[in-house]
């Protein structure tokens, strides 16, 4: 049923795009065919494929650090009231700080390379994961923990069998949101700070007035998003089994 709606939604988007390309000049709305050719060009070129790998690498690094720090801070904030009170204003600050402002600072620290893109993605992901994990900890059924203690389960067993599965739905939704944020911020960071990666190539396409390339790189970013999401889901499912 969901697949059916996904297909209908996809069909509507393609139709709107097709009608748009008939009405507007290719410089404003390039045709589906032009974008398809551009995508083929990217995927058939080894050097351009390497650009995708570069972005993927930056994405994975930022996801790793953002999720690790977010989980750690969220977990501590969930179990310790004082820490939660201390961290709350900092997380609120991070939530409202524009990524571009952070990007400027990161450029001053690291210069014009891919690193500022990673830094802003980490800071953009961190609050989402932190809040998800913290809320998850606060919503763990205390009766289940008491059950574990009554049957003298070790801390490790309680964490593995009660705490982590209780957190899973919160982590899953946090992960999905953070992956979307990471994709957007890493590419944005690349656009503004480097000529490499997907963002760097989008920037080049803008300078060369190639809107079909911009859209092609964007579609590749979206595919990247779904590939990572699918991979992590399969990994988690395997872990649960």
């Amino acid at each position: 049923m969901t697949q059916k709606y996904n297909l209908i939604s996809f069909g509507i988007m393609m139709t709107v795009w097709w009608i748009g390309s008939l009405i507007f000049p290719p410089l404003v709305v390039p045709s589906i065919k032009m974008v398809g050719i551009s995508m083929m060009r990217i995927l058939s070129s080894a050097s351009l494929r390497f650009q995708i790998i570069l972005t993927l690498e930056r994405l994975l690094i930022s996801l790793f650090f953002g999720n690790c720090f977010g989980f750690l801070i969220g977990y501590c904030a969930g179990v310790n009231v004082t820490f939660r009170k201390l961290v709350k204003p900092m997380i609120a600050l991070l939530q409202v700080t524009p990524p571009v402002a952070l990007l400027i600072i990161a450029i001053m620290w690291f210069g014009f390379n891919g690193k500022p893109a990673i830094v802003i993605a980490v800071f953009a992901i961190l609050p989402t994961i932190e809040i998800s994990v913290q809320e998850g900890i606060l919503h763990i059924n205390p009766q289940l923990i008491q059950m574990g203690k009554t049957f003298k389960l070790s801390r490790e067993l309680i964490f593995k069998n009660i705490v982590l599965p209780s957190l899973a739905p919160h982590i899953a939704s946090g992960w999905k949101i953070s992956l979307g944020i990471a994709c957007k911020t890493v590419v944005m960071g690349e656009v503004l700070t480097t000529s490499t990666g997907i963002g760097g190539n989008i920037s080049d396409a803008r300078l060369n007035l190639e809107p079909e390339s911009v859209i092609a790189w964007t579609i590749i970013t979206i595919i990247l998003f779904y590939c990572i999401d699918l991979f992590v889901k399969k990994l988690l499912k395997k872990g649960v089994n």
Partner: protein
Amino acid sequence: MLIVKNLQKTYGEQSLVAIKDISFTVHENEIVMILGPSGCGKSTLLNIISNNIEGYAGSVEFTKKRLGYVFQEDRLLPWKTVKQNVQLVNMEGSDEQVNKVLDDVDILPFKDYFPENLSGGMRQRCSIARALYYGSDLLLLDEPFKSLDHSLRNEMLKLVAKINKETTLSILYVTHDIDEALMLADRVIVLSKRPAVVADDFRILEQPMERNLESERFIGLKKRIVTHLEENT
């Protein structure tokens, strides 16, 4: 096996006394029912015995090793199957041992079911299986069949009696249901309303679950319990 001496628990700054000067003993293979009105502190008593509550006066001495608990709510992990829920409390046990315990409580055919797919009675059977598989010497039961209908509750009480008969397990069972207590107990301890104090303590010699509660003796015992409960309220 379990010796409770002068137990007293107070809550908060206003020193709300929940239980006061409670003493009793549970011997091996004995079924002791703690009977008292709702909210009198029965669960507090079990939580103190099971070390889930700290900061009380008096002493609790447990001479054996393991203490199992069947809670009011089943407290099963929804993401684990019946078998996995039971296995969790004793990682050293074998597959055959788990299956035997599940068979003892008539839940073996449902071992791969998740708790959400089981009825209330089945979930409580699983909860009992978990406490048995833990290797308990003393089983604490906190009104576990409160939400079940009459016939299912009777079935579950028979199961508890069967377990007690076939093992050396002692049982400490709290309830507010007079019939339940009279039907199952070797010994009944009646508690008053808050603060809970021991109002009565007597033995029943007839076999559990084979008693006629309509007999003169049991009607007399019921009246005695009701009088105690009314006197103390």
